[in-house]
C-alpha cells in the first residue's frame, strides 16, 4: 500500500474548491527539523501541496479542531482513526458542532518515532514517498526499510482503528492489513492487576516521582475538554499545587476517572508525556472495567451516552 499523498492533496483541494470547508487541517513538514511534522492548516486549494502524509505525522489533531471550530469555521480534517474518534468525542461533548467538521479518513499504517529514526537512520528522510509493507515502512525510491517493531510510536501499538471509522469519507487505498499491531490491548493492565497490591503502589509511586505535572497529558486529550478543569481550581481546592506522592496520586486518579468511559485511546497523552508516564495503562484499565463490569463493547468508541452516565439494575455489587 502506498501513502497516497497526491490523493490526499486532491481530496483536500476538492473540499476547498467545492467550498465544503473553509480550511483543511493536516500536517506539514517542519523546515528546521527533518523528522518533525506539525499540525498545519491550509485555506486555499493552491496550497494543499504544503500538506504531508507520511509515517512521521505524529501529532493528534482532535484537540486543535475544538479550538479552531469554536468561531464557526468549517474545517476539513485529515483524520486517522484516532483523530476521528477524538473529534467524535468532542462532538458528543458538544464542543464541536458536527456540521463544522468534515472528516476525511486516512487508513493508517502506524506512525514512527521521528527522533529515533533520525538518530538511527537519517537517510530515511531523503524519501520522496512511503509505502506500507505491513511490518515495515519502505521509503521510495531509496528502498530504505524501517521496521515497525523498532520505530512504531507507543501510542500506535494498541490502535483498534487503523481503518478510520465514522468519517465523512475515507481515502481509498488498496491492499494492506488494518489489524491491530498488538493482539491483546489489555496485556499491561492484566500484568499490573496481577501484581501484589504493595508492588502495584510502588510501580505507580515510581512514576509519580517522575511526573512533572506539566499537564501535557490533559491538554492534548480530546476527552479533557472542560471549560475550567477542577484540577486548576483553588476553590474548592481539589488538588494542591504541591507535588508529592499523595497529590500525584490524586492527580492521576482524578484524570483517569474523568476520562473513564470517555477516553478514545488515541494515545496522545502517552505521546505527549516527556517522561513516559504509562497513562495508557490507566486509561485502558478504565476501558477494561467498562467492558468487564458493564459489558461495554469497544469502550474507546464515543457514543451519545457514556457508561458512567448510565446504570443497569443488575450492575455488579462488589462492595463486600
Amino acid at each position: 500500500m502506498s501513502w497516497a499523498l497526491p490523493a490526499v492533496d486532491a481530496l483536500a483541494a476538492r473540499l476547498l474548491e467545492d467550498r465544503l470547508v473553509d480550511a483543511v487541517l493536516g500536517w506539514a513538514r517542519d523546515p528546521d527539523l527533518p523528522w518533525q511534522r506539525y499540525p498545519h492548516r491550509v485555506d486555499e486549494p493552491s496550497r494543499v501541496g504544503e500538506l504531508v502524509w507520511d509515517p512521521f505525522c505524529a501529532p493528534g489533531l482532535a484537540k486543535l479542531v475544538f479550538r479552531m471550530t469554536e468561531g464557526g469555521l468549517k474545517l476539513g480534517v485529515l483524520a486517522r482513526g484516532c483523530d476521528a474518534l477524538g473529534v467524535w468525542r468532542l462532538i458528543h461533548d458538544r464542543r464541536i458542532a458536527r456540521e463544522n467538521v468534515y472528516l476525511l479518513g486516512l487508513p493508517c499504517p502506524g506512525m514512527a518515532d521521528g527522533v529515533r529514526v533520525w538518530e538511527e537512520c537519517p537517510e530515511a528522510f531523503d524519501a520522496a514517498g512511503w509505502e506500507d509493507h505491513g511490518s515495515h515502512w519502505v521509503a521510495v525510491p531509496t528502498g530504505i526499510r524501517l521496521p515497525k517493531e523498532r520505530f512504531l510510536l507507543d501510542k500506535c501499538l494498541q490502535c483498534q482503528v487503523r481503518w478510520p471509522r465514522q468519517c465523512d469519507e475515507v481515502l481509498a487505498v488498496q491492499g494492506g492489513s488494518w489489524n491491530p499491531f498488538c493482539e491483546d490491548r489489555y496485556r499491561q493492565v492484566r500484568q499490573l492487576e496481577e501484581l501484589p497490591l504493595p508492588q502495584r503502589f510502588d510501580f505507580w509511586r515510581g512514576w509519580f516521582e517522575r511526573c512533572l505535572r506539566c499537564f501535557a497529558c490533559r491538554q492534548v486529550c480530546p476527552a479533557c475538554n472542560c471549560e475550567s478543569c477542577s484540577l486548576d481550581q483553588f476553590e474548592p481546592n481539589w488538588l494542591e499545587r504541591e507535588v508529592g506522592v499523595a497529590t500525584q496520586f490524586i492527580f492521576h486518579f482524578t484524570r483517569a476517572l474523568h476520562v473513564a468511559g470517555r477516553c478514545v485511546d488515541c494515545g496522545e497523552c502517552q505521546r505527549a508525556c516527556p517522561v513516559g508516564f504509562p497513562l495508557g495503562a490507566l486509561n485502558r484499565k478504565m476501558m477494561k472495567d467498562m467492558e468487564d463490569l458493564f459489558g461495554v463493547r469497544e469502550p474507546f468508541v464515543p457514543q451519545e451516552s457514556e457508561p458512567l452516565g448510565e446504570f443497569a439494575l443488575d450492575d455488579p455489587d462488589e462492595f463486600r
Partner: protein
Amino acid sequence: MSVREGWRPKIVAFCCNWCSYAGADLAGTSRIPYPASVRIIRVPCSGRVNPVFVVRALQRGADGVLVAGCHPGDCHYSTGNLYARRRLLVTRRLLAYMGIEPERLRLCWVSASEGERFAKVIEEMTAVLEKLGPVQQLREEGPP
C-alpha cells in the same frame, strides 16, 4: 503492617440525607452500640459523592470511606444511588489498581429504619480496617 498502640481506624461516612443519615441517627437514638471512630457527612444523595472525595478523605487522615445510600428503587431522586454504584465500582477498582486496598471503600444501602444495619456495617468495616491498619500510601510529610 504494625498497628500503633491505641490506634482506631477512622471512617468517613457519606450518608444520604433521605435514608442512611436517618438510619445512622436511629442507630444513635436506639443506643445500638457501634464504633465511635466514624465521622458522618450528610449528602443529598449517594450520587453526590464524587470519587475524589474518597481519595481526599484517605489523603487527609481517613482510613476508610463508607458511602451509604437508599436501597435500589427507593432513591429520593429515583436513580441517584444507581449512578453512584457504577461510579464507585469503578473507583474501587481503580484504587486497587493504583495500590490502595479496595476494602477501604464501601458502598452500602441503609434505609431510615435500618439503624441496626448501619451499626453492623460500621462494625464490619472497622474490623476490616483494623486488619489493614492506617493508610500508609498517601500520608503527607508534616513539618520537620
